C-alpha cells in the first residue's frame, strides 16, 4: 500500500484524475453487471437505466434454485456443481500444464536440443489455428475414446491448450535466471534434481504465478470446447450461463448478471492473492539485478 500511495504522489493530481476517468470507462461494463445483479427484473429493464434502486439478493438465490415455469416450484439449478466444475477443471488443467510445461521449459532452456528453436516454434503453431477449426477432429477423438463428457477429457484438453503458452512463458523465466547459481550448486555437490527443485524453481516462483493466472483466466472463460465436450455433470459455468438465457419471461438480465458477478469472484480472488508475484512476474528481467 505504501508503494501505491507514493506513486500517486509522484504522478500528480492531473494524471491521477485522468487515469481514474479512463479506468472508470473501462470498468463501467463490469460495474453495470454488478449493479444489475442486485436489481429486480423490473429495475433491470427500466429506461432510463436506474442508478439508485433498492438492492435485492433474489437474483443470487435464483442462481442456485428457481422456478422454470411461471408459478412453478423452485428447483435446484445445479449451479453449485457448475461452479465446482469450473474451478476444478480450470485448476486441474492449469496444474497439469504447469507441471509438464515448467519441466519442459527448463529442459528447453538448459539442455537445448538440436533445432531447439524449431521445436519451440512447432509447439507454438498448435495455438495458431482458431479453435473452431480443430473442433471436429477433437470432437470425433473424444467420441471414439469415450472422453466426451468426462472430467479427464476436458482437463487434458485444456492442459494441452495451456501447454504451449506455459512452455514459452516459463522458458523465458528460466532463461533470465543466471546459470552461475546452478554451476555453484553443481560444484557444491547437488544432483540435477536438487538443482531444479531447490535452486531454480524458487527463483521462478513469480513466473509460475503469472503463468498460472493467465492460464486460469484463459481456461475459466473458455466456452466453445466446454459447450461441445462437457456433459451434464461436467458442465462449466460459461456453458450453463448460456443455457440460462431464454425462458418464458424473456432474458433474465438480473439473473445473468448475478451469475457473472459470482463468476468474477474466483478470478479476482486468485489475482489478488498472487498480485505481488504477478507484478514481479510481468516485470521480470526489466529491473537491473
Amino acid at each position, binding site marked *: 500500500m505504501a508503494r501505491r500511495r507514493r506513486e500517486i504522489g509522484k504522478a500528480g493530481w492531473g494524471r491521477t484524475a485522468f487515469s481514474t476517468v479512463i479506468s472508470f470507462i473501462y470498468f463501467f461494463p463490469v460495474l453495470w453487471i454488478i449493479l444489475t445483479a442486485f436489481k429486480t427484473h423490473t429495475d433491470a429493464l427500466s429506461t432510463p437505466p436506474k442508478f439508485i434502486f433498492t438492492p435485492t439478493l433474489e437474483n443470487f438465490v435464483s442462481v442456485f434454485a428457481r422456478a422454470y415455469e411461471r408459478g412453478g416450484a423452485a428447483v435446484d439449478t445445479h449451479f453449485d456443481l457448475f461452479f465446482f466444475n469450473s474451478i476444478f477443471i480450470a485448476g486441474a488443467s492449469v496444474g497439469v500444464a504447469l507441471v509438464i510445461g515448467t519441466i519442459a521449459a527448463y529442459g528447453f532452456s538448459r539442455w537445448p536440443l538440436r533445432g531447439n528453436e524449431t521445436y519451440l516454434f512447432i509447439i507454438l503453431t498448435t495455438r495458431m489455428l482458431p479453435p473452431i477449426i480443430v473442433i471436429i477432429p477433437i470432437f470425433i477423438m473424444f467420441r471414439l475414446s469415450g472422453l466426451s463428457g468426462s472430467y479427464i477429457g476436458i482437463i487434458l484438453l485444456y492442459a494441452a491448450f495451456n501447454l504451449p503458452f506455459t512452455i514459452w512463458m516459463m522458458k523465458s523465466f528460466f532463461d533470465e535466471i*543466471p546459470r*552461475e*547459481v546452478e*554451476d*555453484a*550448486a*553443481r*560444484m*557444491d*555437490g*547437488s544432483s540435477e534434481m536438487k538443482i531444479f527443485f*531447490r*535452486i531454480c524453481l*524458487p*527463483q521462478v516462483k513469480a513466473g509460475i504465478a503469472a503463468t498460472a493466472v493467465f492460464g486460469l483466466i484463459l481456461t475459466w472463460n473458455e466456452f466453445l470446447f466446454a459447450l461441445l465436450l462437457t456433459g451434464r455433470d461436467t458442465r462449466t459455468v460459461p456453458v450453463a450461463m448460456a443455457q440460462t438465457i431464454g425462458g418464458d419471461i424473456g432474458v433474465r438480465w438480473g439473473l445473468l448478471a448475478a451469475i457473472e458477478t459470482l463468476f468474477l469472484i474466483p478470478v479476482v480472488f486468485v489475482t489478488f492473492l498472487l498480485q505481488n508475484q504477478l507484478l514481479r512476474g510481468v516485470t521480470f528481467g526489466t529491473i537491473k539485478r
Partner: protein
Amino acid sequence: MADIELRNLSKHFGTLAAVDDIDLDVEAGEVVCLLGPSGCGKTTTLRMIAGLEDVTAGDIFIAGQRVNDLAPRDRDIAMVFQFYALYPSLTVADNLAFPLHAEKITKEEIDRRVHEIASLLDLSHALNRVPGRLAEGEKQRVAVGRAVIRDPQCFLFDEPLSRLDIAVRQEMRGQIKQLLNGLHKATVIVTHDQIEALTIADRIAVMRDGIIEQVASPHDIFAKPANVFVAGFIGTPQMNLIEARVVDADEDTATVNTLGQEVVLPLHAEVSLQGGGGRRDTPLTVGVRPRGLEPVSEAGPATISGRVDLIEPMGAETLIHLRIGDDDLRVVTSRGLTASVGETLHVAPAEGQVHLFDHDGMRIAS
C-alpha cells in the same frame, strides 16, 4: 594436499579455439593467477578445471587423478563465482551450509561449521538474511565462505573482486590473500586486474587468445616479460615499446636507431646482443617502463629527446607524454620536475630498465 596439472588442454567452440593447447602446473599450496584481457580463455580454462565445461582435448589431473570425465561434484573443488552465485532463495546460513549437505555430517556439526565460518568472515549478524538484502562486500564474503566451509582439495576463483568498489576491493584483496595463505591449497584465480594478480598470486600465467604467454612469479612477470604482449599488458602506465634498429652492440650497451635518434642503451646483465642479434640493422623492439626513464638536464649519447605533449599529475608522481615524430613516449617522474607543455625534455633509460625483444616479439636474453 593436491596439485592441479593441465596437459595440452584445449577447448573449441565450433571453429574458435577458446583455449589452445595449454600446459600449467599448480602446486599444492600455491596460488596461480590466470591473467589476461577479456576473451583470452582464462575463464574457460577455470570452468574446465571445475568440470563445468567439457574438455575438447588434453587432460586435467587433480592430485594425480585424471578428472576429465568426473562430474563437478566429484572433483572436490570449491569455486567462487564472479557474480557470487549465491542461492537467492536461501538465507546466508543455508547458503553456507549448502555444500555440507552433500557430505555425511550431522546437523550439529553443520551448525558449528556455519557459525565458525560466519564469525571468521564477519557474517554472524547476517546469517538469517537472504542474499538480496546483503551489501556487495557481504555477498562476496558469503561466496568465499561457501567455498571454504567444505575443506575441498583446491579452490577456483573467477574474478573474485571485480564487482566490489575500490575501497572494499583493497580490503578484500588483503583478506583473501590472508585466507589463502592459511588454507594452503592449490588455488587458481582468474582475473583481468593485474594489481590483483600481482598482489595475491605466487605465480601468474598471462593468457592471450587461448594460449599462455608466460608463467612466472609476479616479480619476474614484471621484471622479465617474455614477450612484447606481456610487457605491454603488465604495469601501469603501460611500458613504452618502440621500434628500433641495431647500429652497434657490445657487452654492456647497444646502440640503436630509434625514433629518428641514435641512442646508446645500457643493457641488463642478462641481455646479450653478441652474435646474430647484434648485427647492424637487425630490427628490435625496445621496451622501457615509464618509471625507467629519467629526465636529465643535458642531451647526450644515452638520451632520447622529445617535446612535452601532455602532463598528467598522478598524485605523488607525474606522467609526462613526450611527442617524438608520431610516437608517444611515456615518462613517470616523482621529482618535482617543472616541465611545461611544448618544451623539449631529455630522458635517459636507467640501468637495468631496458628490455629488448626480437622482431617476433620475444624477449632477448643471454
